[in-house]
């Protein structure tokens, strides 16, 4: 190898890395190894630059941005309603949760009320989405730690949830179903039965999946005591959601700053003790059971009534009125051409996504387009914390740790 090449790691020279790796790397005593961005177990396109001493990780420099699509910039060029579809595409396992976060911020900015039925529906959908996301976590986490069958089972159950979403919105993933002021349309026939059927099926299966992993000695030896972080450090590094709760900090936005009526539901927030891979896995399993409880309660109280606000300044009138009402026609025309305007001001709204705190910072300037949107995404924080978690562990543990944090690169890069 010529000297020119040996001094370069990908597109970065050793000089540029000087402050990120130890001095031993510069003398060639430790090895610099590139992991990703096309590595299947880095969950998307995450690149890690590893400094290794034999099998041990001395340091790690995560590199993100491969999936950056400029969603925040694009949203600035669209009206508030049109910008909504961009949010689906950030965290592609939490589409409805992203819709909800953006809609809550927008509703707060323009001061728009949401009817009771829509609130309860939103809770049902978002909790189903949380279960679907955790099922994908369980599937990929098991696969990454060497258990193939769990992967197939979890995707089977997830499909039931995606069927319900398709029933409502016509789409399995990019739903855009939660709209400012309520929902896109009312629930279709058979929705409640489908959800009840799912709620009946899942608990038994969850028990099976839990047994498949938590009684598996290989899985236990790969997860217990690996990649642990204290509660204090986890807060300092901005971890939220199950990743933070695994370290013993009981912070859940659904309890601490309730939105969409979460204060009316009876559910527990599971909290771990060690903050290691195993605890993060356990948190998510327990959260799925809690989400099922919430869905059941919500189904029982699902009231009749309008599924979206009747404030015509923000919400389009029903199709049936267009032929008979002049006002409705005007509102419809205004909403689909110019859109509605938001007052000058800024709001920050945070919701509990399956991965943690998903925040939307929204600035209005009096016009019909968002002046600035920023999403505070949980995966961004989780990936930032990877080096803290894997220092001193083996190369094989990296994969277990990354998948236990459950980062989604679309969420981190936006």
């Amino acid at each position: 190898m010529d000297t020119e090449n040996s001094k370069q790691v990908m597109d970065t020279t050793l000089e540029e890395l000087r402050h990120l790796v130890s001095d031993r790397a510069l003398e060639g005593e430790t090895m610099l190894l590139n992991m990703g961005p096309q590595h299947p177990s880095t969950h998307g396109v995450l690149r890690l630059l590893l400094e290794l001493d034999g099998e041990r990780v001395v340091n790690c420099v995560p590199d993100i941005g491969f999936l950056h699509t400029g969603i925040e910039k694009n949203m600035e060029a669209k009206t508030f309603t049109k910008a909504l579809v961009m949010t689906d595409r950030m965290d592609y396992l939490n589409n409805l949760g992203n819709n909800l976060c953006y809609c809550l911020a927008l509703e707060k900015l323009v001061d728009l009320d949401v009817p009771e039925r829509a609130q309860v529906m939103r809770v049902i959908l978002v909790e189903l989405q949380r279960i679907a996301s955790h099922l994908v976590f369980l599937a990929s986490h098991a696969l990454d730690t060497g258990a193939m069958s769990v992967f197939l089972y979890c995707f089977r159950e997830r499909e039931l949830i995606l069927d319900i979403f398709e029933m409502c919105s016509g789409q399995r993933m990019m739903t855009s179903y939660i709209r400012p002021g309520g929902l896109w349309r009312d629930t279709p026939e058979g929705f409640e039965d489908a959800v009840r059927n799912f709620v009946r099926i899942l608990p038994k299966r969850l028990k099976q999946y839990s047994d498949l992993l938590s009684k598996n000695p290989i899985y236990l030896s790969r997860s217990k005591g690996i990649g642990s972080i204290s509660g204090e450090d986890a807060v300092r590094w901005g971890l939220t959601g199950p990743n933070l709760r695994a370290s013993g900090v009981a912070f859940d936005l659904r309890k601490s700053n309730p939105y969409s009526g979460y204060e009316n539901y009876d559910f527990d927030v599971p909290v771990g003790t060690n903050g290691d891979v195993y605890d993060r896995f356990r948190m998510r399993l327990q959260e799925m059971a809690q989400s099922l409880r919430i869905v059941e309660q919500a189904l029982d109280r699902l009231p009749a009534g309008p599924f979206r606000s009747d404030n015509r300044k923000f919400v389009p009138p029903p199709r049936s009125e267009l032929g008979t009402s002049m006002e409705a026609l005007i509102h419809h025309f205004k909403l689909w051409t110019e859109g509605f305007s938001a007052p000058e001001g800024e709001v920050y709204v945070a919701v509990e996504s399956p991965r943690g705190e998903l925040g939307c910072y929204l600035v209005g300037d009096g016009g019909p387009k968002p002046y600035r949107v920023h999403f505070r995404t949980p995966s961004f924080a989780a990936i930032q914390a990877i080096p803290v978690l894997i220092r001193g562990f083996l190369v094989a543990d990296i994969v277990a740790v990354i998948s236990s944090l459950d980062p989604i690169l679309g969420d981190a890069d936006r």
Partner: protein
Amino acid sequence: MSVIHRAVETLQKTLKNKVLSVDTFRDQTTVDLDRAAILDACKMLHDDEALQFDFLAALTAVDYWPKEPRFAVVYQLYSIPNRVFLGLRVPLKSEAAEVDSVESVYSNANWHEREVFDLFGIDFKGHSDLRRILMPKDWEGHPLRKDYPLGYEEVQFSFNYDEIDDQKPYAKE
């Protein structure tokens, strides 16, 4: 007295005229600070035993071009024990778009500040690793600035397909 009131009062008492204004919009309080005061303010809010703003929820910026001061760096702090959010804003003039890094108080500010640097070109003094994070290393400009055009892809029709194809930046034989 609510935690927010106490926090605002503490800031006003210690930082005096460096607190530029306090604004409440839709029950959400945002404190405008002079850029010299941000690090002290964060330290104080973080360490105060009654306030305990221990969590930096979000850090971002807004570009008000062509108005001056052009930028505002926005911090959303959260207190896990007290369960409240508090917003801090630091207005920055375009000729002096730099502010102290709060990395020493909140470790996760590291990447958030890198992102603001990358997309807005705002400098963070005392940052340990200020590199681009989302855009490629050799990218020119800062995309989230308002004077940075959104850009678009020209539509290729049969009559101008080759013409547009020639202008595309991908590698050719």
